């Protein structure tokens, strides 16, 4: 991730396929594991862990959307609805049948994958903006169905309280516990995506994105792979919804409305389409930046404004700054944070002897 070889020295297929082409990469990953598994949870206050937790959930959703939009080139404006499908499936299973999270979580993902594949069917005939509108319709239909089906939504309030997940009789409830719970699934999602995109399926996705007719000619069944992309992507979204449900202790469709779909699209565009690291950076950027901006502004605004005025000033300024930063980063590097990071890395690859 942080290091690159100085040339191509690969002599076997195995070394070419390796996740970690250099030994030092293995050490970087190992130190990251230590950082995230031990140092952060032991040293950070619950408040900061809660922010990381929100980012971890967002990472899972962003990865899923990036598989569809970034790798396969099919846009979806209905991902929040797939999250709600996962959330309500898991909530109903957990409450009505009393199933544990390791059953409800994949079940929520699978149900979302099924619905996602159905909503993705128009992608077999339409592309681009037209597909965006079709998935938008999917979002609204799913919202409406949940809102008007008490059997799914659990009544007029459309919210289902879910018991905390338990593991070996141990209840996962504090931010610290939830951190490990979410970290595990986020790491799993990252690993799965890394492996998916360098597999036969992943390469088929990329071929469809780059030129679907050419992909069909070289023997890729684009109908199958497009639906598969929708299904896999929605599976991630469903899991993201389930994680949300367990994190909050409640499934509520108002948390998964159209604005959230747009937020996730923003994440992957800011982070970088068609890249795993980009999804992570984008999710962290969109989740954390508003919070960081506020924390940075609070002491400053305190110097100039009264407590009452401060809240109003911060709320408005933060939106302006957040928007400005998004524009700034996209103007500096239209291909997102991932590309920016690669540019920096490439610059230092031969630094200081760049000639």
């Amino acid at each position, binding site marked *: 991730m942080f290091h690159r070889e100085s040339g191509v020295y690969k002599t076997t297929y195995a070394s070419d396929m390796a996740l970690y082409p250099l030994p030092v990469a293995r050490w970087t990953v190992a130190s990251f594991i230590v950082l995230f598994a031990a140092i952060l949870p032991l040293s950070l206050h619950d408040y900061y862990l809660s922010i990381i937790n929100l980012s971890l959930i*967002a990472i899972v959703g962003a990865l899923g959307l990036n598989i569809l939009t970034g790798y396969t080139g099919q846009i979806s404006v209905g991902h929040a609805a797939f999250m709600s499908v996962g959330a309500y499936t898991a909530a109903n299973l957990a409450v009505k049948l009393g199933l544990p999270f390791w059953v409800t979580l994949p079940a929520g993902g699978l149900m979302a994958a099924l619905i996602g594949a159905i909503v993705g069917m128009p992608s077999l005939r339409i592309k681009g903006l037209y597909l965006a509108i079709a998935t938008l319709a999917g979002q609204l239909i799913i919202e409406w169905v949940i809102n008007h089906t008490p059997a799914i939504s659990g009544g*007029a309030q459309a919210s289902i309280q879910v018991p905390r997940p338990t593991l070996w009789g141990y209840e996962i409830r504090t931010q610290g516990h939830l951190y490990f719970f979410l970290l595990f699934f986020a790491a799993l999602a990252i690993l799965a995506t890394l492996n998916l995109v360098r597999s036969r399926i992943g390469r088929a996705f990329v071929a469809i994105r780059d030129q679907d007719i050419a992909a069909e000619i070289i023997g890729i069944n684009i109908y199958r792979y497009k639906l598969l992309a929708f299904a896999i992507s929605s599976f991630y979204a469903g899991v993201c919804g389930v994680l949300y449900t367990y994190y909050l202790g*409640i499934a509520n469709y*108002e948390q998964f409305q159209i604005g959230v779909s747009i937020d996730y699209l923003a994440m992957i565009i800011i982070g970088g389409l068609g890249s795993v690291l980009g999804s992570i950076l984008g999710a962290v950027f969109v989740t954390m930046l508003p919070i960081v901006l506020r924390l940075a502004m609070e002491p400053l605004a305190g110097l100039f404004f009264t*407590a009452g005025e401060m809240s109003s000033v911060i*709320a408005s300024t933060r939106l302006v700054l957040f928007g400005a930063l998004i524009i700034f980063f996209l103007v500096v590097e239209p291909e997102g944070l991932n590309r920016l990071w690669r540019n920096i890395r490439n610059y230092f690859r031969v630094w200081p002897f760049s000639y």
Partner: protein
Amino acid sequence: MRSGTNWLRAAAAAGAMAIAGSAALAQEKELVFGVQCDRTGATQTVGVFLCPGYHDYIALLNSKGGIEGYKIRVVEIDNEYKVPPAMEAHERFKKEGAVLHGLYGTPQTAALTKKLEEDKMLGTSPGFGTAAASDGKRYPYLFPLAASYWSQAAAAVEFAKKQLGGSLKGKKIGYLYFDNPAGKEPLEVLEDLAKLEGFEMRTFAVPSPGVEMGAQVIDITGRFKPDFVITHLFGRSPSVSIKELKGKGYPLSRVVAMVWGASEADIKAAGGFALAEGYHTLQFAGVGSDFQVIKDINEMYKAQGKGPPSQQETSVFYNRGVMIAALHAEAARNAIKAKAGGRPDSVDVKNGMESIKGFTLGGMVPPMELTPLDHEGGGWVQVWSVKGGKLTKTTDWFQAYRDVIRKHLAAVN
């Protein structure tokens, strides 16, 4: 170079002083109130008036020496009407050592209900969240404080009954509502009341975002022709409903709006007070500037050389902010008194909230009585109507059909 180091030294000294100052501040007797607000999201039309009211009341208290010697520090987080920032806000308030959490927004209230209970943190959700939260046994740490949507619906029916001559038998009532959980919540109570009072009810759902309701209104005025209309709308949609009903010739004096369609801003957006003449609104806090506490706030601003805050023009929401702040402060006061001046924690403040009784703030707050069982305080509302270019009080505080509400509360499983 020399001046540069001097400058650095001065900055370092200032920094050290600031740190020392904040440490000294923390040692002072201080209570932290955490409140969420929405100033930039879907319901900013409410938040930008409500939250300044909250801050102004707390500033007023602090300028008079705080509550029983404790100064109040408010930590506000703008949740943009989204759920993740609400979660962050809760953890932030915990970190700051807040003794209570002022919630904002129905999805946010739903998302945090469990957390509040786990963390033993008092949360207040006036006008938000589920009506079932009135039941203090089921929701020990959640306080709706204001009349729930069930109580509001019951009060609206009671008001319609009075306006229609004391009986609803054979009458027709239309219910025009926003098609979301909050909008649908009163349905079951209304259906019950329709059976009890013998009126015919028909519902008209307005899909989100609620700015287009021509078809529903034609349905109401052209086909159903009800004797009374109850509206339950949010955001920009109340003003659309006023305009549409007026435009189709329905008399606004036979329309009553529930609490989020009831502000001066809605009426102005619909075309002004002259157009909306007769429109009735339900209120859970007093309306207008004719209260001692508002005068005190304006005095405070005058002493600082400023005029009254502009947000008071939408007194409906501003006063609700003042009311919420006042109830928070009163709960804290009760808690401090119960501990004989000791520093209260969130559980103490919760107990303080549960002992609020006869606190009316000069008529701005209803005569509510909060108990460990009743976190709603009785479901009191007033009706204010548009008359002669302003909102005027039509009824005093009243509650309606409490037995029906209690039956529904008991039926929540």
